[in-house]
């Protein structure tokens, strides 16, 4: 399968997948994303629900369990999801390493 069709990822999607290396339910994902992004990414419930729905359809995340009350679904990354997440990470890493010598020299921009 050509995994490039999943890339590049929206910032929100990347954060959701990054937090789903551990099994989490919806609200757990919201909190984890907020923490990982130091408060800068605060996903609203309608947006998160739609994003999880899409990721599930694409097979990037899996439903693994339900919580004790049997109300909340718990998700985690699928094997495909883990591969795609690492590919996206490497893609961004390449961008960063290409850009670093070009941009970090221009000291004015960095102040």
């Amino acid at each position, binding site marked *: 399968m050509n995994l490039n069709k999943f890339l590049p990822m929206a910032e929100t999607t990347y954060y959701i997948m990054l937090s789903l290396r551990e099994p989490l339910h919806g609200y757990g994902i919201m909190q984890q994303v907020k923490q990982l992004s130091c408060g800068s990414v605060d996903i*609203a*419930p309608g947006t998160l629900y739609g994003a999880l729905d899409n990721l599930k359809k694409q097979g990037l995340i899996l439903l693994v369990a339900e919580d004790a009350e049997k109300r909340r679904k718990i998700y985690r990354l699928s094997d495909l999801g883990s591969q795609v997440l690492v590919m996206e990470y490497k893609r961004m890493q390449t961008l960063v390493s290409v850009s670093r010598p070009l941009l970090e020299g221009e000291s004015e921009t960095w102040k």
Partner: protein
Amino acid sequence: MEMNVNMAARMNMIRFFWHFEKEEAWLEKMALEGWRLIGVSGWGSYTFEKMTPQPLTYKIDFRQFSDPKAKSDYLALFEDSGWRCAAANVGGYNYYFYTPSSGAPKDIFSDEDSERQRHQRYAAYIGSSTLIAFLPLVTVFISGLTNPPEMSYLTPGLWQMQGWEFVAHFLFETPFVIMRTSVYWLPVLLLLAGLGTCLYYYRSYKNGRRRA
């Protein structure tokens, strides 16, 4: 608009809205006047209960669920993040959420794409239900079970009449012809209205956020 207040401090109102935003703004105004939404029907009827006037933020989402578990997971996610579901209408799949308004403005969508997709889901629902409703009718038309000439002017010799005699008979029968042929034009009118509504919401999906 109809209004009747009963002993349990409840009130029913009938309203129709084209924009989710206008509907939300109206519910927020009702909250400031001390009325909390407790129920909606698919046909524009809203039930309110008396409460202490307070600022609430209302947001409406449109969703259809294939299984009840998906729905409880969805509602739990909203409750966990501080939204309460005031009502969900039976036929229309609209979910009405509210939260106390304080501090920064709150929303159930945190990006424009997901907010616009609400219109896309709504357009798909209206479009598909309109078409499904018209499938049996199309079958009836195609199979020739109805006979259009029998539904038009039936006065014997009408088209041979002259002058005022013709005008009088023609005008007299016209309302009956309109009623008889409504079998044809009423469904067509409803079909056009359904498809028009579908197109309207599809355009708001394409064109992005439209603030009232």
